[in-house]
């Protein structure tokens, strides 16, 4: 019983990271109809930057986290100006933009995996393709014991941070002028432009915000699982992020939130009942959801206009 509750709690911890990550996917997709496959590498780079600040440059953890998030935001600018805006200017189809984000993702992974001791990027990463861990004692690792359950404080913080961020974001999108501008561009960029919305600026800000969220998710993931490598984005969250946004409903913030927790809990339940590799469950769930209800749990049913 205790084990069950512990596993379910773990599912909630990890699910909140999935939700945070999926949020960026869904925001950018909602706006541009482009799946930004460089998103998972922003996640990876957030973890890498924070790790190197803490382990190599001896920056206090609580300062390294905001710096990692800022690095993620800057990477969002790179995605917009290198992979997306030039193609938008040329009226390229969304599938071309998908390919250019893949190109950017290839570059980011390759740069980190080639960074070794003595190379030009040694200040950022010096372990090549290897996995590393935060040095003991430099990151918060306090643990509460409550009714026989192990509750690491950092993981509890993760859930609180995620819920708070989701609430703020949902409020901004629903009630503020900035959120209205984003929704206007998502609905019809041309009409939004004619009504005086600066479409390029809306897109740039959205990319910066979603990339900052991805970097935060990466940092929290690195903290929770204590595992950092050039491949954590590609192997751990890229496809799970897709499952999250499909489960919740593409473009819906509360939906992504629910999708993340659903996937985290589904994986926990699978470990409990089957005790096996949990990766298949996300894809099966995704597949079933798309067939039964393509718009996801909270998505809008849309029909094609003629």
């Amino acid at each position, binding site marked *: 019983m205790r084990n069950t509750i512990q596993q379910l709690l773990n599912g909630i911890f990890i699910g909140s990271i999935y939700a945070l990550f999926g949020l960026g996917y869904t925001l950018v997709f909602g706006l541009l*109809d482009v799946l930004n496959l460089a998103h998972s590498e922003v996640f990876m780079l957030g973890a890498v930057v924070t790790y190197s600040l803490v382990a190599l440059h001896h920056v206090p953890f609580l300062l390294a986290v905001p710096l990692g998030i800022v690095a993620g935001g800057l990477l969002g600018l790179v995605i917009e100006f*290198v992979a997306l805006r030039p193609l938008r200017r040329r009226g390229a*189809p969304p*599938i*071309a933009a998908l390919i250019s984000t893949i*190109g950017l993702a290839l570059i980011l992974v390759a740069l980190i995996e080639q960074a070794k001791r003595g190379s030009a990027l040694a200040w950022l990463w010096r372990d090549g393709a290897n996995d590393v861990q935060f040095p003991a004692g430099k990151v918060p690792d306090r643990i509460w014991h409550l009714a026989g359950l192990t509750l690491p404080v950092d993981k509890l913080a993760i859930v609180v941070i995620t819920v708070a961020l989701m609430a703020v974001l949902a409020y901004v999108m629903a009630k503020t002028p900035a959120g209205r501008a984003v929704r206007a561009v998502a609905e019809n960029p041309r009409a939004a432009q004619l009504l005086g919305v600066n479409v390029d600026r809306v897109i740039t800000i959205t990319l910066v915000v979603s990339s900052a969220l991805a970097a935060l998710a990466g940092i929290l993931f690195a903290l929770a699982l204590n595992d950092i490598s050039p491949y954590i984005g590609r192997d751990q969250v890229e496809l799970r992020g*897709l499952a999250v946004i499909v489960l919740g409903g593409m473009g819906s913030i509360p939906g992504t939130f629910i999708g993340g927790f659903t996937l985290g809990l589904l994986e926990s339940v699978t470990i409990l009942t089957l005790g096996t590799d949990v990766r298949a469950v996300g*894809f099966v769930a995704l597949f079933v959801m798309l*067939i039964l209800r*393509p718009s996801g749990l909270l998505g809008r049913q849309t029909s094609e206009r003629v």
Partner: protein
Amino acid sequence: MAFLTQLLFHPFTWYHAHQLLAGQIGVDGLLALSIWLTLYSGQLTLANAGFMAIGAYSSVILTGGTTSTGPAAAGVHLPLAVAMLVGIALAALVAFVIGLPVLRLKGVFLAIATLGFGEALRYGLILNLGITGKGQGLNNPHATLTSGITPIWLALVVLAFLAWRLTGTKTGHAWAAIREDQLAAAAQGIDVARYKMVAFVLGAMVAALAGGLGAHLSFLIDSNDYTFTQAIAMLIWAVVGGIAFVIGPIVGAVLLTILPEVLRFTQDYRQVINGIILIAIVLFRPDGLFTRRKGTGNPSRLLRGWAFIRRSWASRRPQPAPP
């Protein structure tokens, strides 16, 4: 650079030094053709890595492949051609069954659902079943190695020719119509669901063929060869080459499979250059290398160049004297 000069000036020496690469290029060409079939009909499906796995595992298991604990299927030793046919038939069957619900989806939802199928197949079945070696890979004692290269290229040439002829038939026109506007196509009386299914099943069969042929290029097959990354690679080849003509994805596959070898001299930063080239290609030719000119339906400059050469060649032939 040595790679390129050798390829251009000493093709036979090159071929002997890079036989397996030549085989791989052919397999990638077939895979590009398989995804072209669905892209040409306007569907972004990413299930082909899964069908490739079905073809590969069937052809290895049925010809007497072994797991780490013994034969995968005791007492089964079919000839390669029969095993391949079984794999292709199985892929077609699976494609039909999952196509029934999935092909109703559009755009990126279809892409994600088919991706989900591929990964569920890999994580759920291939990594857990005893017959597929539980993720430890399968040994393939009956690999054809270099003698398998000719059949691969033969298959590619024949299938590319058939696909090209298919674009001029009723089916090809129906696919093009569905791609341009599904609702308009349906209004014209085109059975949209049926033609989409035909493209999907044909694509699955070609992918299974490529998987089976490719698996026999080596003594070991590994489920890591049939991942998300492989599915995305096919999509990249097709988009880089352009989907307006059959030749586009095949040229894309050939160029991008050779590219890492050409870039070998950049050593550690090979993947970085690879990524930069990818971004540059979609930036300068967002519709791919071989396209139709907007509005006219005529081939773009790259292909028109070829037509020009052909015309001028034809005009050099003696013309009949005017009466």
